[in-house]
């Protein structure tokens, strides 16, 4: 599948935003601290930025509001509806924290819950597609949720070492979610690669009873929408290397930096060392998750490619 930049940016940024919103909503940060107030603004900005980015790949973005209508059958529609619903309690919480130094328990829980359900819906857009076998695994939504929480908690560590919360607690969450996310992801990738193809050129053409089927001539000489959108191929050796880079950038390095930041904050209080370590952890984590999300698309094979010999 073609790894569209707008969708990668959308799923990674909004995932980070919803992860942070979940921690903020659970009341793990001191609402009186300046860093917490900035955290609310950041969470809202990440979610909104992601949603705007997601409309960039539409052919007719001016009609995007119509996507809120078919929540009964469409995961994409459900995602849109929940994204808007999640904004309401999160904005209320942000208002209470920024202007009144207060944390509101019920809107906070609603923001955390609705945000995570939104991430689940995003994952199910892919998870519900039978045509892409790699995606239709049960672990797909699990990995999306864990990566959202891991990015959110890593960003939360940056806020925590800036005085918003107890650094150790948030750093512990960041490391736990990051480890869990990569364990789930590795399992997902290995399982997905071990699957026997559901559809083959033989079932796609129905000619398997005569023999083995191989594409002789494509419909047209050049690429078309289908091959551009669904025929993306990445060399296996590069994919494996990139997966290693993703684990390094999005797992090992940020986990270590988060621990360093928490140690520094514990030893010296909020300061430049802790801030820098946490800041670099966020950047590295985002880069790693970005590569992970690129591979999520690039490595996925669509059933229609059975007609195109890819």
């Amino acid at each position: 599948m073609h790894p569209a930049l707008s969708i990668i940016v959308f799923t990674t940024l909004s995932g980070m935003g919803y992860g942070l919103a979940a921690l903020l909503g659970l009341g793990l940060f001191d609402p009186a601290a300046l860093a917490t107030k900035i955290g609310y603004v950041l969470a809202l900005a990440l979610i909104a930025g992601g949603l705007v980015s997601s409309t960039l790949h539409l052919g007719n973005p001016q009609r995007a509001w119509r996507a809120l209508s078919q929540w009964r059958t469409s995961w994409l529609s459900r995602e849109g509806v929940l994204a808007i619903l999640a904004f309401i309690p999160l904005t209320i919480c942000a208002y209470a924290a920024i202007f009144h130094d207060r944390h509101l328990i019920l809107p906070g829980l609603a923001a955390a819950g609705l945000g995570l359900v939104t991430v689940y819906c995003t994952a199910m857009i892919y998870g519900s597609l039978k045509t892409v076998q790699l995606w239709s695994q049960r672990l797909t939504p699990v990995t999306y949720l864990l990566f959202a929480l891991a990015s959110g908690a890593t960003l939360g560590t940056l806020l925590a070492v800036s005085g918003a919360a107890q650094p150790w607690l948030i750093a512990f969450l960041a490391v736990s979610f990051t480890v869990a996310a990569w364990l789930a992801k590795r399992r997902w990738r290995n399982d997905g690669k071990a699957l026997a193809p559901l559809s083959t050129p033989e079932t796609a053409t129905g000619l398997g009873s005569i023999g083995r089927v191989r594409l002789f001539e494509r419909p047209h000489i050049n690429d078309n929408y289908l091959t551009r959108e669904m025929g993306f191929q990445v060399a296996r050796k590069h994919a494996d290397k990139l997966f290693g880079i993703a684990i390094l950038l999005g797992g090992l390095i940020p986990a270590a930096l988060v621990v360093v930041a928490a140690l520094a904050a514990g030893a010296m209080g909020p300061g430049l060392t802790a801030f820098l370590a946490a800041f670099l952890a966020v950047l590295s984590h985002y880069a790693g998750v970005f590569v992970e999300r690129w591979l999520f698309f690039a490595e996925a094979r669509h059933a229609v490619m059975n007609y195109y010999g890819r």
Partner: protein
Amino acid sequence: MTSLPSLPTPKKLGLVIDLDVCVGCHACVISCKEWNTGGYGAALSDQDPYGADVSGTFLNRIHSFEVLPEGAEKIGETGDARIVHFPKSCLHCEDAPCVTVCPTGASYKRSDDGIVLVDEDMCIGCGLCAWACPYGAREMDLAAGVMKKCTLCVDRIYNETIAEIDRVPSCVRTCPANARHYGDLADPQSHVSKMVAARDGFDLMPEQGTKPVNKYLPPRARTALAESAIPLAENSAGASGFFAWLDGMLERI
């Protein structure tokens, strides 16, 4: 509304494509593009039409496949390989996954005749329906930014302003080899249903659970070329009359 019709549609209009007959001439591709670029909805645009990297929106495409008998690694190893020309357009599935994923309600399946259509005024061009379709039946038009697909020529088959003989999909009307047939596959007495029953018509990718309406007829078994070839001038046993006399005379020389 992107819910599928709750009951089986009373009619299942669709195509039956005979893989034994198709010669791969692509006439249906051109005729489809010609009719549908001026018919239902936005035109079927081409990008870089006169350049080196030409591409465009098509609702019907012909692939050609080579089928090697089981066990063969290369052509001619175990029996003859076959070339099968394979026309492919929307199969108007009963359980169409492209319809239910649509977030706007632009994609729908008609409850009376089962045709799957896109209301282009509601389509946002997200492309999710094309991802949901295992057959590659949907293509985004890059100029209009909306999803295009086979309409089963809904603007021909019910069109009372054209001659009755023309009230079939453009591809069916055009096919010079008569490889494409149109009819109601819900009616067991229709000519298409009888054809499917007689020739063991099959579904494409039944494992995807889409229950396609369109059926394909398999290529018929073929006599290997080597078996039907007559060895030339090996003997003259069949000669009679003048030729028998000539044969005898020549033998003696």
